[in-house]
């Protein structure tokens, strides 16, 4: 079982590296090599590690463990064809992780990050709307059933395009250097991750790598269908590069604009669902 997690971590870190490389090339910079994030994680794991004196020790460490745990669970959920409602739950729990990570240290920078993570709670609603929209078509929330539905009716990417857009926005709002990544903005140092250094940061990088892998994998699985591994990875890479383009050309939004954009998308999708409900009964 652990081999799946190690594979996903490795690919996720590689995806982070590719993400940085693509952004750099679009902006006319040479950029780091694509394995930079793997080196980065190893580097952090070799750095001297301690716990800040002002931090709440148990929460400071516990939140890192929870971060890796929930995304590992989400990966197995996808592999075993579980319910996307649970995937939505993991996504919401990640919000708690971000929030708890920021609050646990006592530093004002991490606290700013934590509070920004609370106000950007609107980013969860598009995913919920996606879940409901998919339920309208497939009448099931299990990933296995969704894959079966797509084999008969064609990919949901075409059938339920607005839902795919909402899920795309959800992934975008969790990408590094993206327009919505206000919780780790540089004006508040590294946001909620500021005080997690050394081993803790390396472990968080592992959790984030799993998160990127899981979200991209979920997008491919839910909207395109179950493909062979190589094709799945290729589809994930294409989605990732398109996300990198968006990240490269958009500036970071202000916290309130972030909430506005996400709420507007949610509102548009609610209208879409109501229309669906009227047409399809």
């Amino acid at each position: 079982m652990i081999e799946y997690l190690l594979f996903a971590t490795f690919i996720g870190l590689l995806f982070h590296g590719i993400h940085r490389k693509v952004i750099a090339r679009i902006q006319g910079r040479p950029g780091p090599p694509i394995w930079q994030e793997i080196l980065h994680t190893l580097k952090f794991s070799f750095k001297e590690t301690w716990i800040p004196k002002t931090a709440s020790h148990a929460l400071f460490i516990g939140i890192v463990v929870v971060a890796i745990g929930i995304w590992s669970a989400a990966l197995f959920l996808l592999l075993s064809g579980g319910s996307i409602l649970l995937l939505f739950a993991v996504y919401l729990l990640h919000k708690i992780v971000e929030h708890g990570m920021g609050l646990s240290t006592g530093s004002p920078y991490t606290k700013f990050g934590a509070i920004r993570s609370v106000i950007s709670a609107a980013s969860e609603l598009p995913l919920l709307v996606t879940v409901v929209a998919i339920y309208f078509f497939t009448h099931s929330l299990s990933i296995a059933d969704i894959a079966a539905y797509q084999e008969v009716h064609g990919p949901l990417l075409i059938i339920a395009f607005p839902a795919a857009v909402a899920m795309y926005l959800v992934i975008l709002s969790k990408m590094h250097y993206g327009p919505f990544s206000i919780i780790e903005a540089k004006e508040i140092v590294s946001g909620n991750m500021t005080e997690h250094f050394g081993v803790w940061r390396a472990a968080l990088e592992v959790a984030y790598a799993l998160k990127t892998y899981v979200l991209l994998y979920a997008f491919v699985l839910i909207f395109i269908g179950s493909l062979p591994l190589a094709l799945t990875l290729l589809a994930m890479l294409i989605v990732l590069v398109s996300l990198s383009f968006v990240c490269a050309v958009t500036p970071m939004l202000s916290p309130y604009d972030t909430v506005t954009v996400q709420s507007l998308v949610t509102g548009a999708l609610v209208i879409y669902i109501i229309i669906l409900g009227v047409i399809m009964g």
Partner: protein
Amino acid sequence: MFDLPTTNIGGPELFVLEFGDIVAYFSPYTAALFVFALIFTVLAIVSRPERQVDFAFGGDAYYTKEVEANLLRFQRFMAIACGLATLGAMVTGDVFNFTLFASLVGITNIGIVAAYRNRHVLNAAFQYGIVVMLATVPLFGGAAIVLASTGTLSMWELFTGAVAVPLFAKAFLVLGVMGEGMAPFYIAKAEITRAQGAPFVLMVHVSSLLLFLRVIEIVLSM
């Protein structure tokens, strides 16, 4: 007799505890939520609060706030109560019990920060309290409509295809739980998190997110 037809939503039931037609149960979904609530309740029990660092404006000075023992005890008590209410809401198989646990979560959320003497935090808690109180009207109203239109509050009965729950009641239930602290009613919570005591303040957030996840499952299953 009891064969919960929710394999599509929460998964098959893993454990049931019957009280007449009211059945507390675990499905993989609610079990996962239960475990998560348990983790954070345990964290609130075992961890000490952080000491917040404040900058003094206009200089390089910064100072660390001290933790008051009395405040710590009260916050921890309220956080554990909030955790227990959340755990209850995760396992219950009764719509009215769920709404009761939801309103208990709202009360304890205010309790967690109520002892903290900071004008901004208390203001935010007051505003949050008003939103929660308003939200209890649709919350209990939703449960009442469910009872009036179907004659039962047991999810075990409501989840069967034979019972049709009006859309209105479902919308009321979701609205009520959203008032407990989901977007877009969470505005006051951003200021609440100024309060000291990260493991306890975090419970404010954990409880409302988990409640929301549970109500989505209930509403989709009904």
